[in-house]
């Protein structure tokens, strides 16, 4: 790897041990992936925040670091709502360790808003072509695919190293040639809202770490109808929340960091890619299989929404569905603290039903979910992670089905999608 004179000095320890270690990490990764040098980054997003995932091991390492980050840097979700942790049954010992972790990051100059959707925050803007060092896999997929920025799936330590140095190793998705699609995915059915999560879950397994380009072939179904209604026409073009759900699910069931949607996402529009030779076809039946998941003998005992964190539009929809209703079981809605602060009317409406709006964390990284045996979600990402991370079964359904299950309007098996 080529290093500048200043970088060489850092590597020799002339700028202290923390920066020396940070650069050693980036150089080691650069060597593994064949980087020619380092590249300046605009921001970093650092995973490895929940005490549940990093434990004492991570806490010790972060606490031992010294210095300040050189670019805006932000944290991934923690293991609990940092202000309201008691109401989701977090133990005091866990809460204390969790606060210690957040304080250790804060000491390094990192913004302690813990969210997996940093691209929604004020003062954390991302522009097309920006080089980033982000580590939350769904945020990586969103930044690369929807925003046209450039980041690899950084690990916690490498994102933190990049933040401290303001640079990362220049390989992978930082380079134009690696952003060309390598597999085409033809979707042979119409899609609405949670279908995108189901699609991502089903497709991600087959795609692995390749770069897919999606062809959303909705015309076939549309021709069957008598007329093209407005609603059907709108499904041809997934909105930002649907793209968020698609990428998040593919990054979880596979290792997708960048995807394109023909005619829609910025690079697909600009570069007009040729369809790759390798092809994957997804049909309605594969999405139905995801919806058909049931908790054998039990009803879901927790309904969890907001993986990734709910946008204002998703909160609004949830609030509308819950208006004048009350939940008969736990319904948790995860979002970022900033969004919760800006939209108190949605939060009040949701909480009036007995549901809880929870910030700074999520069902996957918080031990709060471990108290439940079957979790119903509307997210392909949560559906992929809940069984392994929370020791609970997972059921997938649309937002409407999730809310209806929580309010007791519909039970298991009654048309989950």
């Amino acid at each position, binding site marked *: 790897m080529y290093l500048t004179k200043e970088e060489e000095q850092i590597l020799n320890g002339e700028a202290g041990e923390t920066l020396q270690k940070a650069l050693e990490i980036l150089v*080691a990764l650069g060597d*593994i992936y064949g980087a020619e040098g380092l590249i300046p980054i605009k921001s970093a997003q650092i995973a*490895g925040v929940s005490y549940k995932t990093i*434990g*004492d091991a*991570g806490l010790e390492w972060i606490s031992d670091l010294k210095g300040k980050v050189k670019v805006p840097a932000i944290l991934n979700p923690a293991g609990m709502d940092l202000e309201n942790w008691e109401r989701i049954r977090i133990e005091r010992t866990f809460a204390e360790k969790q606060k210690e972790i957040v304080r250790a990051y804060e000491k390094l100059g990192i913004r302690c808003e813990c969210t997996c959707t940093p691209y929604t925050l004020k003062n954390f803007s991302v522009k097309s072509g920006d080089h980033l060092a982000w580590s939350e896999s769904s945020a990586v997929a969103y930044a690369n695919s929807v925003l046209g920025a450039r980041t690899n799936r950084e690990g916690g330590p*490498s994102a933190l190293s990049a933040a401290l140095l303001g640079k990362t190793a220049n390989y992978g998705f930082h380079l134009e040639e690696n952003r060309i699609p390598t597999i085409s995915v033809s979707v042979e059915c119409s899609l609405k809202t949670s279908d995108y999560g189901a699609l991502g879950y089903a497709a991600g397994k087959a795609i692995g770490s390749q770069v897919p380009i999606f062809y959303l072939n909705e015309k076939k179904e549309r021709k069957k109808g008598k007329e093209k209604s407005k609603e059907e026409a709108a499904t041809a073009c997934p909105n930002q929340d649907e793209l968020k759900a698609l990428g998040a699910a593919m990054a979880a069931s596979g290792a997708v960091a960048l995807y394109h949607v023909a005619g829609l996402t910025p690079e697909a529009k600009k570069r007009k890619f040729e369809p790759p030779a390798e092809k994957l076809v997804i049909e309605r039946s594969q999405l139905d299989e995801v919806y058909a998941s049931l908790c054998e003998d039990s009803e879901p005992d927790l309904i969890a929404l907001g993986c990734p964190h709910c946008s204002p539009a998703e909160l609004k929809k949830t609030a509308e569905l819950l208006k004048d209703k009350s939940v008969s079981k736990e319904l948790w809605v995860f979002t970022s603290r900033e969004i919760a602060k800006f939209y108190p009317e949605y939060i009040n409406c949701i909480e009036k039903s007995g549901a809880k709006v929870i910030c700074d964390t999520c069902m996957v990284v918080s031990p709060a979910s471990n108290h439940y045996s079957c979790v119903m979600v509307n997210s392909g990402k949560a559906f992929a992670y809940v069984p392994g991370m929370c020791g609970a079964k997972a059921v997938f359904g649309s937002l409407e089905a999730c809310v209806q299950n929580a309010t007791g309007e519909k039970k298991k098996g009654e048309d989950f999608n």
Partner: protein
Amino acid sequence: MLSCDPISFLGSVDPKSGTVVEKGHALYGKSIKGKILIFPHGKGSTVGSYVMYQLKKNKAAPVAIINLETEPIVAVGAIISEIPLLDKLEKNPYEFLKDGDRVRINAGEGFLETLEKA
């Protein structure tokens, strides 16, 4: 100590003792503490890097690691824990080393020498 299986430090190794706790693993029940540990490559969660750091702090880490070809989790873990790491040796270590052999490695210059065959 040779492992024919890859190692996921998160979940497979007890950070307090260095004992391999993953059932069915080639090293199940054995301790990697104080060993020159040879395994093909890492696997599993990126938190594995931190577990290597914890092993080191608990004085339960391997003294050195040799991989056929290392990957980011083990590479990062080795750096933050200051565990010497070698990979891509000229000769396949599984062909000329056995469990219990005594070897000396120099990760700075990148060589390995066999001191005593088991």
